């Protein structure tokens, strides 16, 4: 039956060169920056409006304010109330999203290019002429209030909320609601209008645009709808320094839970990005960044402890987080923690050339995929703006990945794989988790409640 030689994978055809596009940088009359890319395949346009007015500007006790502002800002704007605005969007198949990340306040719209002018008018109305009605505020706040309560029963949500609180002192708006049970009650409509007037409106925005249309058309519409409205100020500086802590295992008891949701991580300063970015990406790849990583091979394919395990870097403007996420059956919680630490330690000691080369190929050869859809290009443009990166960042990154040596990788692993500073959040059955943990780990166990407060048992 076997007529051809199947014993080795076929060799690829000759390499087809794919040059990553470099985004264009334009400026409007008022100096606002536009990161532009023309892609002519389909009549689709994606626009992002970005100002640095994210959750890091939430006042103490008012966590969630940036997100609540984002939730409310498109509930009626310009001449249209919430329902009429929604009807207009739907009538043209437009998709409008507003969100606050840790750093930024972003209004994103996509649709067919024939509606470019309408899309920009809507974004302008939403940002500069929102209605902020009390009834809309009450409705959105109630929705978020219930979401906060709902997420208390979701192990994955709670692991994220608690780890963010442990690492950076508050839940990260990027992942969940940003608010907590107390802060959502404190925020008033006046707080929202103040945040909008003081933090969002006065700033000079950056736009990203990917479209099949020529820039001249985009520029005209941007001028028509934004000139005279846009602010001119630069964002405030906020101290977002995070401290490293000793290895700890924070348990949120979920009695009789058959599985433990596990999220572990530590913060990193932005030096890691500027100095050893590319080498560290390769290290993360081989540790837990893909199907074939050491963690996946160990925890899933050898031991069957989990359905999946992933490690990743989460980038913010001034700092980064390194995170590991998995769910394991309760009795294997302790053994899984040991393996996660052991693999991290092993990476610090030993990376093979072959492994590094695989990691490099995984990261660099798929670069053409990143530019396939308009939505993905819009995300890449946002990455450039939010990270304050050069326009040819992705080309530079490719070169950096190609040139990173084994020595660079081992240096990065030793410098930034801070296993002694890992903070584990374990959401599951407390007794089962503790029973599964070997004695040396128990010294680092801290029980917490769903607000992150330490629980002391008799």
């Amino acid at each position, binding site marked *: 039956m076997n007529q051809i030689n199947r014993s080795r994978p076929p060799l690829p055809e000759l390499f087809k060169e794919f040059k990553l596009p470099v985004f264009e940088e334009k400026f409007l009359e008022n100096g606002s920056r536009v990161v532009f890319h023309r892609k002519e395949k389909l009549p689709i346009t994606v626009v992002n409006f970005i100002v640095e007015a994210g959750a890091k500007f939430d006042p103490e006790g008012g966590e969630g304010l940036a997100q609540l502002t984002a939730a409310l800002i498109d509930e009626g704007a310009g001449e249209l109330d919430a329902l009429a605005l*929604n009807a207009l969007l739907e009538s*043209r198949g437009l998709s409008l999203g507003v969100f606050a990340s840790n750093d930024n306040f972003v209004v994103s719209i996509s649709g067919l290019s024939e509606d470019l002018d309408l899309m920009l008018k809507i974004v302008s109305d939403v940002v500069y002429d929102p209605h902020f009605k009390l009834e809309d505020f009450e409705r959105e706040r109630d929705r978020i209030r219930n979401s906060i309560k709902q997420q208390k029963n979701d192990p994955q949500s709670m692991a994220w909320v608690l780890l963010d609180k442990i690492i950076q002192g508050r839940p990260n708006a990027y992942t969940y609601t940003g608010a907590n049970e107390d802060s959502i009650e404190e925020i008033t409509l006046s707080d929202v209008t103040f945040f909008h007037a003081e933090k969002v409106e006065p700033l000079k925005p950056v736009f990203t645009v990917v479209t099949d249309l020529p820039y001249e058309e985009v520029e005209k519409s941007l001028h028509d709808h934004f000139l005279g409205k846009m602010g001119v100020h630069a964002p405030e500086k906020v101290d977002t320094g995070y401290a490293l802590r000793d290895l700890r295992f924070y348990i949120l008891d979920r009695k009789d839970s058959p599985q433990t949701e596990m999220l572990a991580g530590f913060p990193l300063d932005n030096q890691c990005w500027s100095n050893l970015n590319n080498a560290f990406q390769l290290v993360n790849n081989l540790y837990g960044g893909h199907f074939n990583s050491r963690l996946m091979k160990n925890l899933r394919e050898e031991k069957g402890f989990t*359905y999946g395990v992933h490690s990743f870097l989460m980038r913010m403007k001034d700092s980064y987080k390194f995170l590991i996420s998995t769910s394991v059956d309760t009795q294997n919680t302790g053994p899984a923690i040991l393996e996660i630490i052991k693999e991290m330690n092993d990476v610090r000691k030993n990376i093979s050339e072959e492994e590094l080369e695989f990691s490099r190929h995984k990261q660099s050869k798929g670069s053409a995929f990143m530019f396939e859809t308009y939505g993905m290009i819009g995300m890449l443009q946002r990455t450039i703006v939010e990270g304050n990166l050069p326009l040819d960042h992705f080309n530079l990154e490719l070169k950096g990945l190609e040139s990173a040596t084994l020595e660079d990788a081992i240096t990065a692993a030793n410098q930034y794989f801070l296993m002694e500073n890992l903070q584990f959040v374990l959401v599951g059955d407390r007794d089962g988790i503790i029973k599964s943990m070997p004695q040396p780990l128990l010294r680092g166990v801290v029980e917490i409640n769903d607000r992150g407060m330490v629980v002391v048992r008799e």
Partner: protein
Amino acid sequence: MIKLDYEKYFLENGLEVILGKDNQNPIVAVNLLYHVGSANEAHRKTGLAHLFEHMMFQGSVNVPKGMHFHFVEETGGSLNANTTFDRTVYFDKLPSTHLELGLWLESDRMGWFLPALVQETLTNQIDVIKNERLERYDNAPYGLGFEKIIRLVYPEGHPYRDPVIGHMKDILATGLEDVREFFTTFYTPANATLVVYGDIEENQTKELIQKYFGEIKGAPKPEPPAIVQPYQLTDTVREVYTDKVFLPKLYFAWPSVVAFTREDIALALASDFLTSSKNSRLHKKFVFTDESLQNISFSNYTGKYHGMNLLTATVKPGFDPLEMEKEIIGELNKAIRSEVTTEEMDRIKYNYKVQAIYNLQSVNAIASRMNEYNFYTGDPDHMSAILDTIASITAEEMLSVVQKYTTENYARLLIAPGGNK
């Protein structure tokens, strides 16, 4: 603009092949759909189709365990698989210079999977799936809702009565012989369709497909499950399940129709009319105006052999879920007997056109859709036909279809707070 060019043909062993060319980027999608899902499973063998989604990555004669991932990821490509009631799909997205690699990998596990099958990998993947089930269903809020509502709406023996992932006791009891028999029956060339879409040269691609798949031995196509004849529930059935949740959630289900029929498309339009946006009738009433629900969703959950209309609603604090049941059913009946404005109907229809254009962006998405459309309708470019059907469906027709399939009797599940799961 929305029309896709393709070529469809069969190999001698029965493998169906669909090719499409798109040279915009140097990327190719290899999408292999096996015409087997959980609907094909025997009684007390639930989860086998999904188990295969895992086992097919556990090695074949020339591709050792783990190396499928390795080979694809080494090219910068991506891969995965998924299983539904009806079918199992394996997909690889690769730089187009590595097309031959994708065909080698997929053909090796189609032709040479069984000799590499060992108990060790089966035991390992059963453990993995046990954890998958815990993570996604047993230990997740409302995670068992779908599993419970299908048991209420579908009778004993119905092909969609069991969850795709399978029941835990069946998963744990799966043996090597079950796997062998399932593979021999369902993982045959005649029971599969291969779509290759992207940056290809057609003649060369055909030669490669013949080279790698042509020598795999053919076998008769297995008998599919029978299409379920339309039926209605004779009584309203209600069940309450307590779970670790904060808000009660209601599930209502009615038996409906098979996928991609005119009635199915009318029901899809109805789901937009009822719940898909702020202005949709039920959302506007309960989420926006009354603020009695956190969310509401109506969907037509259909397949090759049957389907159901599923309405779900999460009830806010201060509202009695049993009272809300009456309100929701009352409002549903009111909405589907009301006048639909031209603007409402135009909005709904226009969104399908826009979505169809959006769906043309990625070769993986196009390959996947071609395979789905072909599996359900025999036409890989069925999007054009769907858009024509949508254009011809009037508001009156949409309402009459949704009236027909949301009858007086229904299955109702209430997931109530208080459980200890």
